[in-house]
């Protein structure tokens, strides 16, 4: 039992609960008081014993739980910090980011070999007689400035990452596909037609638009958001059944408003004559929902399982073309290879397998497709 009434100050001093003068007074007292000196020794002994405890490794479950809690706390702290970040800090961050970007851009420009297209990539331009354009290569990007006329671009990327950008007087079109045509008239983009792959159209004052194979987009047709039509001449798959015919309908990429629906009905002149005819009796269709995409895929899979190979191939091809961005497109591509492997057309099988491997070189099914491709190779004499 401690007789001194100031022993509590030892722990308080150790924990930093005392101010400067109080602490000095306590230190002087400890030098003179045996009880308080003993108290300090006891506290130090406890601390030493705790430090000497062997650290045992945590089990996997505890580690996972702790990691999860830590991440949750870190996320919460980061979100809070982001909300409370002051303006000046943001400005400083912006300046630093700009400096880093400038340095990176400078390095790219000065780096030997950064000029010109990446190895293995190729861009072919096919202008019409009235096309007025310039082409330049900057830091591995092909930039085409189209002032007037019609220009078709064919991009062969190979394994290289080639960025192709077409700048028009009122916007830009970025290629993420392979073959497309841009028409500029009266200093504005009149039409963008995609034969293969996809492009992104960014026209001034309009939302960014993704145009896929077989579509022609007219930014200034009918309404402010433009009109996208599926072009039968560019449509990749032959429509062998009712679903294929439905795919050729005029459809809108964004949700319809009543005014727009009305203007669509009245806006037939905005569509090229060859597409206006099949579109005349069709209603405008919004972008497909998740359930619709799932239903389309299920229908194709059902045909595959029923060994109805002809219909399965059509449905799978249509699915791949319509929902190229959907993760199930890869499954559809693989199923197409499987269906062809069941048949006797080795050339078609090899083509489908190569198409899969070109599009999904690291896909889930790539090893199996490679094996099928190898097995379907013609025997060497």
């Amino acid at each position, binding site marked *: 039992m401690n007789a001194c009434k100031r022993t509590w100050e030892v722990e308080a001093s150790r924990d930093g609960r005392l101010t400067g003068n109080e602490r000095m007074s306590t230190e002087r007292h400890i030098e003179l008081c045996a009880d308080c000196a003993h108290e300090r020794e006891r506290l130090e002994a*406890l601390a030493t014993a705790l*430090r000497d405890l062997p650290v045992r490794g945590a089990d996997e479950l505890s580690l996972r739980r702790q990691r999860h809690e830590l991440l949750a706390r870190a996320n919460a702290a980061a979100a809070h910090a982001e909300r409370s970040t002051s303006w000046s800090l943001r400005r400083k961050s912006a300046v630093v980011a700009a400096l880093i970007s400038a340095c990176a851009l400078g390095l790219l420009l000065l780096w030997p070999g950064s000029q010109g297209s990446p190895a293995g990539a190729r861009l072919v331009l096919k202008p019409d007689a009235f096309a007025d354009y310039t082409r330049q290569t900057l830091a591995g990007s092909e930039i085409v400035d189209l002032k007037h006329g019609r220009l078709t671009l064919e991009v062969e990327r190979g394994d290289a990452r080639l960025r192709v950008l077409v700048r028009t007087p009122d916007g830009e079109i970025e290629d993420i596909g392979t073959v497309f045509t841009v028409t500029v008239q009266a200093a504005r983009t009149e039409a963008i037609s995609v034969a293969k792959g996809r492009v992104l159209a960014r026209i001034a004052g309009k939302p960014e638009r993704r145009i896929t194979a077989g579509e022609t987009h007219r930014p200034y047709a009918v309404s402010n958001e433009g009109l996208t039509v599926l072009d039968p001449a560019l449509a990749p798959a032959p429509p062998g059944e009712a679903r294929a015919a439905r795919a050729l309908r005029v459809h809108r990429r964004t949700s319809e408003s009543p005014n727009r629906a009305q203007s669509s009905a009245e806006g037939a002149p905005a569509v090229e004559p060859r597409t206006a005819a099949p579109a005349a009796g069709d209603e405008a269709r919004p972008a497909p929902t998740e359930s619709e995409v799932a239903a389309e895929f299920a229908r194709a899979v059902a045909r595959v399982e029923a060994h109805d190979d002809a219909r399965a191939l059509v449905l799978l091809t249509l699915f791949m073309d319509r929902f190229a961005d959907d993760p199930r497109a890869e499954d559809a591509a693989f199923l197409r290879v499987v269906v062809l492997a069941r048949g006797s057309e080795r050339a078609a099988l090899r083509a489908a397998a190569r198409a899969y491997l070109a599009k999904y070189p690291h896909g889930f099914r790539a090893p199996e497709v490679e094996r099928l491709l190898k097995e379907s190779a013609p025997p060497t004499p």
Partner: protein
Amino acid sequence: VLQRGRSAARLARFLGRFTGHSPEPAPSPHELVTQNEIQDELSSALGSLATEKRVVLILAEVEGLSCAEIAQALGIPLGTVWTRLHHARRALRKQLERRLP
């Protein structure tokens, strides 16, 4: 435990030949057993503490964080850290009364 102590002592003597440093005298078997018992009892006492008290005690005594740093890390008031630390020490000392000075 004894075997481990002997092995450690042998290793220290062996290394001492090359480094020129004379190793500290190895603890006696009795000291090793006592130390082991203290550690077991301390582990048990530590495990009986409430989590919030145990966390504060370990952060302060083992990790060497100040009370202000602990308060900031755990998002609790400084006074709460002091209180938990005091109660945690008192509980441990009560359970290890025979072992610690």
